[in-house]
């Protein structure tokens, strides 16, 4: 049997179109068929995780059962109890499979873990978030079927965007009226076509045509200061463009498909290259991931630190938490020196960014603010980000150590 990478080729899109047509007609007439939605979800999951990838499929099923037991069990427990240590234990257990998958290649010479499958990190974010909101009491009516639909929602299963349980549930339980749905349909289809441009034309050009050439040239131009060379700088920009168009393209497919299914999955990118500073960049780049980190790691840690008065000054609290937050993000990408350095780089960048913002606020009169400084800020931010992607790309590992 064939297996398909989600949104990977024209056949996948053709199947998607055929499968979504009855659903679209239903939504236009104000009807949502749970049965049909479940059937096409299963169909596309089998396309992705069946055939030669069946071991991943088995890993997915076991993983889902495991997370269901944890989230459902915790929701039942939380009705009458609220122990801190038990909550932490649940979070650790929910993260355990992902941790194993991420650490295995680092200790087993690049060997992938058997329990891994495409999208495990994105599912872990959803499960952990469900446990945390259950603890807070903001998620009161945990429903097993909704949780399964939320976890297995096929348009976003492989790489997000990372939705939130309560937001998803509200959409899933309702049917948009015809006028609203027509608007969503229009947007969804436009997203798909912009996605084609991003992923199959622009990302193809930068990633498949330009990058290998530049990489070869960069490897041949080694020997200078830190092995830096013009081709390496070219690689940095080509890699950054590829990373953006590839992932933004995928995200547009995922969001577009969701919209067609009457679910307003949140957007992942909002013109990130226009950010005037790093802090703003993280409000515009891989938004659902950075907001997940903001809401479930950064804010929670800051809350805990401040409540227990761990640090004297709020700025110290913010700085320490920036570093922890971005280091965790680095480790999440994988246990390699370049992902972790990338995380550290962004943690420090956020710290410096805050220091500058404080300075600017204090010296409002003496710091100039005009078109030129604005353009300079955008230029500087974009280049800092591209430099961080050069670290992230792992090419320095090849240039320096191979």
């Amino acid at each position: 049997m064939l297996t398909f990478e989600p949104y990977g080729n024209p056949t996948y899109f053709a199947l998607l179109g055929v499968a979504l047509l009855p659903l679209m007609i239903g939504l236009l007439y104000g009807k949502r068929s749970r049965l049909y939605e479940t059937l096409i979800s299963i169909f596309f999951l089998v396309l992705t995780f069946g055939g030669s990838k069946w071991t991943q499929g088995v890993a997915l099923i076991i993983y889902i059962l495991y997370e269901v037991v944890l989230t459902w069990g915790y929701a039942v427990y939380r009705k009458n109890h609220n122990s801190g240590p038990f909550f932490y234990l649940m979070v650790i257990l929910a993260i355990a499979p992902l941790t194993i998958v991420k650490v295995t290649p680092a200790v087993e010479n690049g060997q992938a873990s058997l329990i891994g499958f495409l999208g495990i990190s994105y599912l872990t974010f959803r499960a952990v978030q469900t446990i945390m909101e259950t603890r807070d009491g903001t998620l009161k009516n945990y429903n097993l079927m909704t949780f399964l639909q939320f976890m297995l929602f096929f348009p976003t299963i492989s790489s997000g965007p990372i939705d939130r349980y309560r937001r998803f549930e509200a959409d899933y339980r309702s049917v948009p009226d015809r006028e609203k749905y027509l608007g969503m349909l229009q947007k969804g289809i436009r997203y798909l076509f912009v996605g084609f441009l991003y992923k199959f034309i622009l990302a193809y050009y930068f990633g498949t045509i330009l990058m290998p050439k530049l990489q070869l040239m960069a490897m041949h131009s080694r020997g200078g200061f830190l092995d830096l060379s013009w081709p390496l700088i070219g690689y940095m920009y080509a890699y950054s463009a590829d990373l953006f168009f590839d992932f933004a393209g995928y995200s547009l497919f995922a969001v577009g498909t969701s919209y067609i299914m009457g679910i307003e999955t949140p957007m992942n990118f909002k013109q990130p290259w226009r950010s005037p500073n790093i802090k703003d960049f993280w409000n515009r780049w891989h938004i659902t991931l950075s907001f997940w980190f903001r809401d479930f790691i950064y804010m929670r840690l800051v809350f805990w630190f401040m409540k227990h008065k761990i640090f004297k000054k709020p700025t110290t609290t913010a700085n320490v938490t920036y570093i922890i937050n971005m280091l965790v993000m680095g480790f999440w990408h994988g246990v390699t020196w370049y992902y972790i350095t990338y995380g550290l780089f962004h943690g420090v960048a956020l710290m410096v960014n805050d220091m500058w913002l404080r300075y600017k606020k204090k010296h409002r009169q003496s710091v100039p603010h005009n078109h030129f400084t604005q353009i300079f800020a955008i230029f500087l931010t974009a280049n800092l980000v591209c430099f961080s992607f050069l670290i992230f790309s792992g090419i320095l590992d090849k240039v320096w150590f191979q």
Partner: protein
Amino acid sequence: MDIKATVLDILNDLTGSDVSGAMDDNLFDSGIMDSMASVQLLLSLQSELGVNVPVSEFERSEWDTPNKIIAKVESLA
């Protein structure tokens, strides 16, 4: 002291700027508030008004102007 005045006091302390003249301005867009300030706001609400708001209740779009914050706190008090 009523809720509105207390919330405005907290916000003024937190941001170092008087927000009472711009009750519908987005505090996050203008950079006056950030995640750090949000947590400080939640802690102050707890200590000064006894209003408990868990972090996951803090949906930024519902807390982004002084007027919205006051309405939110009044609904939770």
